[in-house]
Every structure is written in C-alpha cells, then in structure tokens.
C-alpha cells in the first residue's frame, strides 16, 4: 500500500527544481554575453524613474497601509473561494449558494465593521474615540 509512494514519485518535482535553477543561471549567463554593455550613471541608479532618495526615511509609515494590506488579504481569500464556487456552482446547487452566502456575509460584516470604525478614512488624524488616551496619534 505505502510502497507505491516512493521517492521516485517526486522525481518530476526534482527535475522541475533543477530545470528552474538552470533557467535562472542560464538566462543570466546568456544575457551577459548577448547584451551590449554601455552603462550610464542613470542606468546604474536603483530606480530609473522618480526622485533619487537623499536619506533613509526616518519617520514611521502610517499603519493604514497595513490595514489596506489586511483588507486586501481578506478579499483575496474571498475571491479564491468565490472563484472555486463559481466554476462549479451549477453542480453544487443550493448547498453551494447557502455556503457562499454565509461566507460572504461574514466577509462583508468585516468590511462594514472596519468601514464604520473609520479604518478606511485616509486623512483622519484624530481617532481618539477608539484609542486609550495615551496612544492617540503618535505618528503626527
């Protein structure tokens, strides 16, 4: 029973790993020989567009980015589920509809909550209503 699963079954994965490694090394080496080599100061900048950074940023970043990232993850997961459901929803029938409704209810409940609590208000500095007094607005 178990003997049918051997390391040999993982051979394709190992081959894939080797191929991927070869591709990376190979394309780097190949481009080194094929491409023309004419560096200019602009090309050697970390970023070709935008302003050249003068100093390391010392101030804290607003934590809002973090909130947006978290909301993104929530909706990302929702899409994963919705996508799987949508591709076979006919065959799943009412069970699928019910399950996805319960699921989306809780996702939208999350959205409604963070929205109402002001997490999506980008320019609001003062959110003292929600925080203990000593933690208000450190970023300012």
């Amino acid at each position: 029973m178990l003997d049918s699963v051997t390391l040999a079954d993982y051979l394709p994965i190992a081959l894939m790993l080797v191929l991927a490694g070869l591709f990376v090394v190979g394309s780097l080496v190949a481009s080194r020989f094929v491409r023309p080599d004419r560096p200019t100061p602009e090309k050697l900048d970390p970023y070709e567009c935008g302003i050249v950074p003068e100093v390391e940023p010392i101030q804290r970043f607003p934590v809002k980015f973090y909130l947006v990232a978290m909301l993104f993850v929530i909706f990302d997961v929702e899409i994963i589920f919705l996508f799987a459901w949508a591709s076979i929803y006919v065959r799943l029938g009412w069970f699928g509809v019910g399950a996805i409704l319960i699921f989306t209810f809780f996702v939208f409940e999350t959205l409604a909550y963070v929205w109402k609590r002001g997490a999506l208000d980008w320019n609001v500095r003062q959110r003292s209503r929600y925080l203990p007094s000593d933690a208000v607005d450190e970023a300012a």
Partner: protein
Amino acid sequence: MITPPEVSWIAIAPDLILALGAAVVLLVEVQWKPAARVLGLVTAFSLVLAVGATLLQKLAVEDAMLAADPERLVAFSGMILMDGFAVFSRFALLGATVLGVLTGWRYIEGLGRRGAEALALIMLATVGFSIMVASNNLVMMFLGLEVGSIALYVLAGMSRERPESDEAAIKYFLLGSFASAFFVYGVALIYAGTGKLAILDIRAFFDQFIVTSPTVIYIGIGLVIAGLGFKVSAAPFHSWAPDVYQGAPAGVVGYMAAVAKIAGFAAMARILLTALGDLDSIWLPIVAALAALSMFVGSTLALVQGDVRRMLAYSGVAHAGFIMTGVVGGETQGILFYLAVYAVQLLGAFAVVVAVSGASGARSSIDDYRGLARRSPGLAGSFTVLLLGMAGLPLTSGFIAKFGVFTDAWNSGYEWLVVVAVLASVIAFAFYLRIIVAMYMDEAEEEAPALVPTVRWVVGLAVVATIAWGIFPGSLLDLAANALAL
C-alpha cells in the same frame, strides 16, 4: 458529478450561533454605539442559545446511540462529528466562556468601545475551539485551532496601554504560530504516510494495514504532539505560559487558559486515542515522558514564583502533565472529567485574582494576598477551597479527577508515571499552601478589595462546583463516561 456534503445544521448550530452573535455585537456597536450592558446582553443571549443548541445535540446523540446508528452523527461528509465527546467538550467550552465573560466583565466594560471587540473575540475563540473538538478531519481541526488561537493572541494584547500585555501578545503569537506550523506539518506527514485526513479513516487504515516503513508517520505523530503540547502548555513547550498569564488582562486570562486546555486536550485525545490508537506503542512513551516532565517542571518552578499569576501558569503546566497522564491512561472519561473540573477551578482562581488585583491586573504579587483572610474572609476562604481543589485534596473535585487519571495510567501499565505524578502532587501542594499561609498567617496591610458582583458569582459557583463534585462526583462522572468518541 459532485455530491454536495449533507448539511447538518444541528452539528454546527452552537458555532453558527456564536459566530452570528459575534457579528451582531460588532455591527450593533458600530451602528448604535450602545452601552456595554446591551452588548453584554447580546453576548449572554448568544451563549444561552448556544448552550441550548448543544443540549439539542446531546439529545440527538442519545437518540442515535439508542437507535444504534452512529453514522447519523457524522456530518458534512465526515468533516464534523457530533459524538458525545464533542458535545461534552462543547459544554465545557461554553461553560468556560460564560464564566470567562462574567469574570472579565468589569474589564470589558472598561475598554469602552473596544469592549465589543473583546466580546466578539471571546465568542469567536469559542467557535474555533468548538469546531476543533468536533472535527473529524485533521485539516478542519487545524482550522478550528487557528480561529481560536488567533482570537486568543489578540485578546492577550487587549490592554494596549500596558507593555506587559503587548509582550504577552507578541510572545504568544510568535510561539503559537510556530506551534501551529509544527501541528500542520505533522498533519501533512501523517497524510503522506496514510493518505487519509479523517480521524475515523486513519483509524480504519491502521486497523486494516500494517505499515512497513512508518518513519514519516512517526515524525508526523511527534510533530502533532509537539504542536498540541504547546497549546496546552506542557513542558518543554511551556515557556510562553508564565509571561502570557502575567501580561494578558487578568479578566480574560482564566478564559484563555481554560479553553485552550480543553480544546487542546480534546484534540489530542481524538488524534492519539481514536486515530492513532493502534500505534500507541509509539506515542505512549512520548506522552508519558512529556507528562512526567510537565508535572515535575511545573510543580518545582511554581514553588519559587513570587507572582500569583505566574504561579498559576506553572501550576497549569503541572496540570497539563496530570491530564497527559490521563491520555496515557487512554480513557476519555478521566480526561474529560479532569478538564471540566480544572477549567472551573482555574476560572474561579482567576476570578479571585481579578477581585484582589483589579480587572486589568497590573500587579498580582503574592504580597497582595497577605492577610486577605482578615480583610475579606469570604474571598480568602473561597481561594483556599479552589487552591486545595487544584492541589487535589480529598473531598474536592480535584481529588476525584486526579484519582481517575492516575488509576487509568496505572491500569495501562505506567506505574512509574503514577509514582511521578503523586510525587509532583505533593510538591504542588507546597506552593498552593504558600498562598494559603500568606492569606491566613500574615497581617493585613491594605483595605478589603471591592468585589464586583459578576466576579463574586464566578468565585461562588467555582467553589460550590469544586466541593459538590468532590463529594458527589457521580453525575459529572456519568456524563464524562457517556461522552464517548466515535
């Protein structure tokens, strides 16, 4: 053609009710900004409904057992089990939640608008753990474990203004995620070795086949035990417990510790006793060693603590060892009885801590308890009963619980473990006695603590339960005996 799983609403009714309750609490809070009392009522209502749904489950289980049709109790194509084991664990979880909310009520109220979050997190943690104890599928179990654990990480950090709370949350989160990774890796290896994820399928697999190259499965078992051992704070995976018990808000620590222990041990019993019962020659020595280590480490380190919450944490490590002794014994009755009894005592003890050192619990040094008997004799007497119950003195529920798991372990041939356990109980008695001596022998220095009514209820209930189950353990023992896993 896909056949959708059979929907069995009753099998997940308590969880659905509590999840909805959490959603309603949050939505009501942002929409109407009501007084905390209203949110508390919504929570209480959800908890009552959930307990009612669990009662219905119990009736359904009895029906199915009478009809000799256990297939009926397998729901959602074998994802969820509604067996007696799950129902008993759910009752324990819900009871711990009720006591936990009552203990922490003053604290939750004081959080202002964030109180709704605390209530919702408590309910969601219970949902997660409740799914965990009822799952028949290792992945489902992991999902429940994560839902519950993540809610607990946030609860540990609810007191943002105290750095200790932050420290507790970060430590708990990092180590907890690490442990979850261990657990899920173990699940993956067990799947790799057997090709099964459902508990009952894994049992059937080992009944049917003899595995010729079982290394992968053995490593998987070890990882699963390590992951769950962390969640129940068994040595050597206990290092987070003292800091979390001390740093997290006192009002919710008792709840956090109780539900994590109940769910962790229920899952451990399901995986080891049911799924891997045929491999007990492999995991019995591991679990016995962990149990002995936990009892020894917990009892001895608790002796030297100067902080009551840290002491309770190390006593929790020792108790994890005692319950693991029950796992070695292999009887779910002993394990479930011990869990229920210990959860009540733990919540009662933390209610006393809340009463003495305040709801956010900034300080809980043993000095605060000096002369408590003079200041408020009732509280000191109650704490004495609870501590003696934890120590396992006869005529308390702790004695019956310890006696049960020791007997089971003895009968399964682990006499040496019982000897270690008895020795550890004696050591443990010393540090419980230390607090009692401080309460009764020393002079009072401060005013009597003001008791919040809800905390008073919890302490009173815990004391009554500790004595009642110690003298008349029959009814609870019967319930635990009937709570069989499929």
